[in-house]
């Protein structure tokens, strides 16, 4: 068969996505749901970090990932991609940002383009799970710091220095005896 594999025609989304979409009951029906999600995706592209309810953040994340992946794969000279960008970004100055800033920023990335952090539960609260959805490589201060690991170069060097110190001390002890 000389047919292209269909799953390779669409860029793969790099985050886990539910098998079934969330319905988000809306007085305007499915169209209202999409309007709501478009608003969230636009906000994310504009501000690069937004705090949302978990359900909405997780749902919007997949659409944002897909949009960025398409922009990276096809560029701005591909009609379906441009239509997609026009649909999902309600503020049109962000269409430029998608192709000229984000697609360039994530060109060589091997992981997802967005990150979802769990926001703290404030007591007493409504206990709706809140999340912080952000684009990677944003200019804001990082939310999570990398935990120190013994594989880090300065930790390896410190460990070696410590061992050296112990050896030196032992030798001195032997001499004095």
């Amino acid at each position, binding site marked *: 068969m000389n047919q292209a594999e269909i799953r390779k025609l669409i860029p793969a989304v790099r985050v886990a996505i539910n098998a079934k979409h969330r319905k988000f009951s809306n007085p305007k029906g499915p169209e209202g749901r999409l309007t709501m999600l478009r608003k969230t995706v636009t906000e994310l592209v504009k501000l690069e970090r937004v705090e949302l309810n978990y359900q909405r953040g997780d749902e919007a994340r997949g659409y944002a990932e897909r949009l960025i992946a398409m922009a990276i794969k096809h560029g701005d000279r591909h009609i379906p991609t441009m239509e997609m960008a026009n649909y999902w970004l309600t503020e049109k100055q962000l269409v*430029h940002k998608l192709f000229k800033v984000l697609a360039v920023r994530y060109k060589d990335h091997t992981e997802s383009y967005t990150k979802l952090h769990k926001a703290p539960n404030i007591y007493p609260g409504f206990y709706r799970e809140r999340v912080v959805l952000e684009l990677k490589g944003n*200019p*804001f*201060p990082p939310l*999570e710091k990398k935990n120190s690991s013994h594989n880090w170069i300065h930790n390896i060097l410190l460990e070696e220095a410590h061992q050296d110190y112990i050896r030196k001390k032992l030798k001195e002890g032997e001499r004095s005896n």
Partner: protein
Amino acid sequence: MMARLVEHLCSELRLLAGAVDTLAWTLWPKGPPPMMAAAALPVPVQYNVEQISGSLLEDLKEEGFLWAVPKSRRSRERRLTRKFGLENKHKKMLPYRKLLTCDDCGHVHEPGRLCPNCYGENKKITQAMQEAMVTMQGLNPVEYEAVPVFKGEKVNTGDGFHEGKRIFEVPTERPKWFSNRLTVKSNVTTSSDTTVVKPTNLA
């Protein structure tokens, strides 16, 4: 002959009245449909008690059944114990121990979640930065990466770090915990050697 005719007429009239009632109910619905209402009316029925009671009880015993119902009253003590448990036995009120201490600020936070104190600080500065960024970008096409410059900072354009980037000025001072660039020694200085470059003159 006459009696039969009158009876027939009566039955016809009753049917007609029923139809009119149904029509009225469909047009202006209020309460149950008239036929149902008629059915719900208490109809005095006379049973021969002696005749039925014996056979009914026997039927229940042999093939009838009763739904599962509480057999005896649940005492107040027992009820409250079931509801809230005993302090020294099951359903104890235990303190929430699944908490971690933040490595940076020392406040407690739930595992897998951001620290409320750190996140609060971060949120404040992030919102200020977002506001500055959005005002800088305005409604023009966003074509460059945005880089923050905090209050009192001076930008060195010599090393080409800001090439192809747009600067937005944040009206607050840079927090100490948010270092500028960890890999490079420093780009931002407070000395008077470097020239201050306004965002309009860049790129």
